[in-house]
């Protein structure tokens, strides 16, 4: 009996660790020639200010998110709560991040990495080398860049799903009626009870 249970546990572990992610209704993959899939945050001439509502572990936090494109490969993001207290101010690169300020309650390494992951996936310019094929959807462009799936609408990104270990990790929805910048961004973390809702407030214009 013990040998059977041990074997069963091993099989379950093996199956779950080998499981690959299946995008809804996709039936195959085709190659793509370096398709640029997130072009929202390339303009270095101004910064954007979003009204932010965050729900983290059942705790609501309201404030403002400042988002500055330093270069297509570097974005600076700060979150300030409604009382004017900076909660974090980080520069995000494709392969890491640098903290300018982080409030003591967010200083845990895993928390910093989670925040950097969220804002990296929102802002990062990516190029896809593959696209999904759907059986019944002829014009349903979903591109694959690394571990992320980018669904485009009117040729701008509409939804991103990042996948880790065969499971969805982050789901990002953009609402961009004018296509220039997202008016609204919603992020849902699938591992932690963490939701971020950003509503565009204004450009950082200028002295």
């Amino acid at each position, binding site marked *: 009996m013990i040998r059977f249970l041990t074997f069963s546990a091993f099989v379950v572990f093996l199956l779950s660790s080998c499981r690959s992610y299946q995008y809804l209704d996709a039936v195959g993959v085709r190659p793509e020639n370096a398709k640029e899939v997130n072009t929202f945050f390339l303009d270095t001439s101004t*910064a954007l*200010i979003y*009204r932010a509502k965050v729900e983290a572990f059942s705790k*609501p936090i*309201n404030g*403002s998110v*400042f988002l*500055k494109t330093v270069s297509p490969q570097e974005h*600076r993001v*700060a979150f*300030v*709560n*409604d*009382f*004017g*207290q*900076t909660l974090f*101010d980080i520069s995000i690169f494709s392969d890491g991040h640098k903290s*300018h*300020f982080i*409030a*003591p309650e967010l200083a845990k390494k895993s928390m910093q990495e989670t925040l950097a992951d969220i804002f990296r996936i929102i802002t990062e310019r990516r190029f896809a080398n593959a696209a999904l094929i759907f059986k019944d959807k002829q014009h349903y462009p979903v591109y694959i860049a690394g571990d992320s799936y980018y669904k485009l609408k009117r040729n701008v990104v509409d939804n991103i799903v990042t996948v880790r270990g065969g499971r969805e990790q982050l789901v990002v929805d953009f609402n961009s009626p004018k296509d220039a910048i997202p008016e609204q961004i919603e992020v849902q973390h699938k591992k932690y009870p963490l939701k971020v809702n950003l509503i565009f*407030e204004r450009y*950082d*214009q*200028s*002295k």
Partner: protein
Amino acid sequence: MKINIISVVLLIIPFGGWSQLKPMDAAQVQVFEQSLSQLERVQTLEADFVQYKHMSFMKTAIVSKGKLYLKGTNLLRWSYLTPFVYDMVFKDGKIQINDEGNKRSIDVGGSAQFEKISKLVSSSIRGGKYDQREFQVGYFIKDGVNMVRLTPKVTQAKKYFTTIDVIFSSTDKHIQEVVLTEPSKDYTRFVLSNKKINKHIDDTIFNL
């Protein structure tokens, strides 16, 4: 005659808008403390406030506006009115919050910065003494008005602020502005205006 840029800059500097910060001498401190002690008669305060958040990498500040109500030593209400509506009442060791109709209550201390500023505004309004165990207290004249600079001594507070400047009005001698500077040098200014002192404030203002 050739006038180069450096000469022009050197000429302009003395007339520029740079803040002049001068430590008070002993006599000035004494006069200032006397003026503070007269503020103890304040029982209520109603004022407008503007909050400016300055980030080094942004060109413009985030500006929020609202109203402040203070009654006695235990009742304080901050109402943000633009660009969002958000109410907070400090009462019985709790902060009651009304966030666009979503009401909740948290312990005081849930927001380190706000707890600090609320205590400072409350005590400064009444000419309260600053806690020398918690802060190194410096007295200055800034652009002709009195300013107290509080530098946190406690490690936990140092993580949030390097200095807290409390600036007093030259006309009514009451608190005019609080500036909280963070370790990153980013800072938040709270500027009070339209102060109404010792006018009746109904207790219902502090019910959310």
